[in-house]
């Protein structure tokens, strides 16, 4: 598997879905026998993951909206997506 880099277009792996969990007032990623609860930052990233945006484009979007250095955002985004890739939630 190629590691996720700035040019990668990440997407949810087959069977993984981001959805609202109304009963618990949160958003979750559901999959087979699995449930991930993203924190606020992870949720912002996952919401931008639409199968057309590259990692770079996701970082650009976040950098335009949040008051943080682009490089720090890029590191966070890559770390999260790589972690989720090893867990089979995200694929490239």
């Amino acid at each position, binding site marked *: *598997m190629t590691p996720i880099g700035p040019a990668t277009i990440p997407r949810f*792996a*087959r*069977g993984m*879905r981001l*959805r609202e*969990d109304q*009963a*618990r007032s949160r958003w*979750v990623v*559901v*999959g*087979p*026998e699995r*449930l991930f609860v993203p924190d606020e930052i992870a949720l912002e990233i996952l919401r931008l993951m639409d199968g057309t945006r590259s990692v770079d484009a996701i970082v650009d979007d976040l950098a335009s909206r949040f008051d943080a250095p682009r490089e720090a955002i890029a590191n966070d985004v890559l770390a999260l997506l790589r972690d989720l*890739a*090893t*867990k*089979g939630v995200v694929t490239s």
Partner: protein
Amino acid sequence: MTPQPPPPLGLLAELTHRCPLRCPYCSNPVELSRASAELDAATWGRVFREAAALGVLQLHLSGGEPAARRDLPEIVAHAAEAGLYSNLITSGVLLDAERLSALAAAGLDHVQLSVQDAEAQSADRIGGMQGGHARKLRFAEHVHAAGLPLTLNAVVHRQNLDRLPELIELALTLGAGRLEVAHVQYYGWALRNRDALLPSRAQLDAATEAVIQARAAHQGRLVIDYVVPDYHAKRPKACMGGWGRSFIAVSPAGRALPCHAAESLPGFDFPNVRDRSLADIWLHSEAFQRYRGTDWMPEPCRSCDRREQDWGGCRCQAFALTGDAANTDPACAHSPHHHLLDLAVQEAAVAGTDFIYREIKRPAVAEG
């Protein structure tokens, strides 16, 4: 006053007990329901909507073999309309490409296919169905063609555990994203066959090592779920995440259960979804309250600092081995009955390999 329980996350819908396979470790109760007692699709639809409103996110459509029901596409459509993530737990032997694509079109999210072994002859013997394994392999191709994600579920025990590396290879070959290595749990049918199924410690250690290596080798491609079985464990599992804490099972005839094996427990009047709403059952039924939380616990659980991690373990196993469902699960090293598990392992080591196969009893002729 008992505090309000958290909302349930998962619903297991056992649509039927009918199944062409006869696995000697089937998790269905020894007393199986007949087809005429099954809930209809519209009632399942209502149950799914009630479940979603209550907070359930994941739905497991199981059995028996759920595809033994001709109205399965209608049931799947109800699940999709309710917004539940639907997982079809199937033996794969009854679904051709056409029926599977109807399920995909109805909104099915995921397929979990069981296999009995990596090797056809042994798999067919364990499942009690000639040609079953070959049908499963064809079914996995249909799943792939339909674009559905696949989990391979391998139930393991003494008679197939040595082929775990081959089972892992099979999962990769079939394009599964996830492999569930499920050790047999010993109640119901499996308890009757325990002597023929319990693995040895050496087998278990080799299997655990195979899983560790495969996880590293296939990271990002295959997720392997694997839990050390109770008979070789020092601490019990938080069975169902705790009684009445996150999970509801509904039997083919509509009985709501805190665990799919709970019908084996005596002294319960399990509520039926035909009579009561799922919310009422979850919040107020005696059956769901009885072992919920920690107030019911005996020692050594009551004063244990892990009581809110493992919730006392499995009630069905406590009953099966000690005769009292309210006892600490003997899988725990602190249980005064823990030695029973070692004894069972020793007995199984010198026992034969013949099975008592699962069967639906014929109605008695001269009853009453």
